[in-house]
């Protein structure tokens, strides 16, 4: 699962992840999406850019 807040500054970034994921898979430039989502600091931007979602791989095992 995406971390609730940015590790560095504490901004709630998890709310932006769903939209980021959708728009990125639609082929949009990540820079533009992050700017639209209001993530101005590079600490918050890396949270979304470098996240790897593995909950679906874990879900078969309780």
């Amino acid at each position, binding site marked *: *699962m*995406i971390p*609730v*807040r940015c590790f560095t*500054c*504490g*901004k*709630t970034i*998890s*709310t932006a*992840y*769903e939209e980021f994921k959708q728009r990125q898979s639609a082929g949009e430039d990540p820079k533009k999406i992050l700017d639209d989502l209001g993530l101005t*600091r590079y600490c918050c931007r890396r949270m979304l850019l470098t996240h790897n979602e593995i*909950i*679906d791989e*874990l*879900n078969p*095992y*309780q």
Partner: protein
Amino acid sequence: MEIQFASLDDAASRFTLSGASPAFANALRRAMIADVPTLAIEDVRIYDNTSALFDEMLAHRLGLIPITTDLTAYQSRDACSCNGAGCPACSVTFTLSAEGPKVVVSGDLIPQDPKAVPVHAAIPIVKLVKGQKLVLEAKAVVATGKEHAKWQPTLVCGYKNHPVITIGDTCDACGMCVDECPREILTVKGKKVAVAAGKLSECSLCRLCERACISTGIGEEPAIKVSAEPDRYIFVVESDGSLPVKEIIKRALKHIKGQSDELEHKIREISGDDKK
């Protein structure tokens, strides 16, 4: 001492504090971060959890959810009459029960007090697939950032000295400093370099322009000089949404005042001078 706001809304603020000592500026910063209380989930009672995340992982994620706090209705746990045991005056209970398939979000938490709700309703907590279940009860308490960062009401909270840029007569408008400045605050105006209108406060005092000026072979002294005003500060404060920025600043100032009054009182007591 004077505070002048450049911008102020519930989420973020930028203001200038003038006529204050460096110690006071830092005290204000520290008070805003660590001495203003907010609500955050502290105790979680888990009745059923068959999700892919461990109980402690869930509790950690719940703890980080910012909760709208009305400080007139709640008070800090240490100052509460229940002595930190947790009563309706210093804590709120949330219940959550969900069954997969669904993504459990912060909006699924049902609060006991309709005013103390998560700031964002769309924070994902855990993804459940078919057959997985989650039932829990969470207690949010009022405490300060001193104890744990989840109680900090601020995100970005910092200050810098107000910059002063002076351009001497030796400036020949070569434009080297203009190209060097990472914040693009300098421009060439006529036969001299000048600071672009309204951009002075963006200067980070990096002094790259001074170095660029010397590298042109102007001599020992650069024509452009960057210095800091010693008693004027630019503050940037951002809130996580639990409290409006204005409230954070007010509470922090009140806290500093309370502490200094207490110190004064203690000193009077020790010295035996009870005169007021």
